[in-house]
């Protein structure tokens, strides 16, 4: 099954949020629809993490915040050479192990 890269759009005021809220951060309405986000984002900040939490091996882990037409998402960036402003696309993949279970989600891959 293909995973959709989505945000949550408030049906009342139209605000799109990147995380799930049960009431809209702008107008407190409670009805949302999932909307697909643009497939290209821009890296706004990043870090290369050398001290990793449990469940992630192989430092450094590059983490970044990417902006998809105004909706920002945090994720793993699949490169050791991140650059602010670089273009990224979301790709579904394994993120880490938590309690012996593999956790999947969107990572960001440089568009080349």
């Amino acid at each position, binding site marked *: 099954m293909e995973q959709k890269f989505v945000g949550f759009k408030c049906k009342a005021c139209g605000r799109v949020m990147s995380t799930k809220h049960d009431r809209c951060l702008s107008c407190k309405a409670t009805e949302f629809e999932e909307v697909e986000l643009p497939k290209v984002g821009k890296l706004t*900040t990043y870090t290369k993490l050398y001290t990793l939490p449990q469940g992630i091996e192989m430092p450094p882990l590059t983490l970044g915040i990417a902006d998809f037409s105004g909706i920002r998402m945090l994720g793993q960036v699949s490169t050791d050479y991140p650059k602010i402003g670089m273009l990224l696309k979301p790709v579904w993949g394994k993120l880490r192990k938590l309690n012996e279970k593999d956790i999947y989600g969107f990572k960001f891959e440089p568009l080349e």
Partner: protein
Amino acid sequence: MRDVAIIGAGMTKFGRAPGDLMDILAEASLRAIEHANVVKEDFDAVYVSSMLAGEISHQTAVASSLVDRIALVPAAADRIENGPAAGGSALKNAFMAVASGCYDMVLVTGGEKMTTADTDIVTDLVATMLHPTAEYIHGATLPAMGGMLARLYMECYGLTERHLAMVAVKNHANALKNPYAHIQRACTVEGAMSSAVIADPLRLYYVCPISDGAASLVLCPLEKAKKFTDKPVRIAGLGQATDVQALQEREDPTVLKSVKVAAQKAFKMAGISADDIDVAEVHDAFEILEIAESEDIGFFEKGKGHLAVEKGLTALDGKLPINPSGGLKARGHALGATGVAQVVELVWQLRGECGERQVKNPKWALACNFGGFGNNTVIHVLERGW
């Protein structure tokens, strides 16, 4: 509402403590009780702050255990958990209880025993306070969030790594004069800038250590304080505010809105402004946070906090000394103890009991205890009460 005074303050030396969590909670509490000159008094309530007592020390309901250890039964006892701002929250609860007239004699003790657990486990436990699906599962940790904020600051405001190092050098120098500090070692800008990278651009010297420690305060109504001390410290203002949990979902991720709102509330209640503050303890779990908080509290213009560091304004002999204790960076960061330890330092500063690191004649002080990655901040404003 009644005026509330802090009449005693005590803490353990931060660092690697030989005993367990209950030992250090008891030690700090007894020091505060002795400092307050209330060794024979009954207490109405005890608020104990700890973030990870259950997870690291494998002990729950620690407040009920503490009253037993130090013979304060039948005092009411609650454990307060609000991440690394648990200490500020515990003090807030104690303040409100006394201000409302519910209780007359209250103890606030915060503590954490962290060094018994492996670093990767502690890192992971602390990271669980991040947004569960938008941050945590991706491998985000608190240093990672600090690193991303620091890089944003470099992009937006011209901060350089050197500024982070300067904050570290200042806080290490202050801690050298603090016998309670975890890290008692001078450092240089060059030394800090060649330490190991933790979360680029953050290096070891721009990140707080993992500490054991406990801190404690005794509160009573100001009108009764004179019975025990001629130097009561008045809690003049309190502000707490939250923000959207995920950093990336905030309108401007460089603005710590919870700090801003909490500070405004605290100043309004105290009837003063940021310019009136003579000394502050702020939550520098990462040195970028000392700079960002100093702006959002209102000490310096947004984006100019690093210039204040450059000019020495926040040094011990500067216009507004910040973190005379050494801060989280060098005094140490024992999670649930931190918010209480900040206020312990300020009580001692206002009373003129800080020896070599004494700030000259302060009247107003501010403590900023930052929880989550900035989504729950507690600020207290203190005033010399005599």
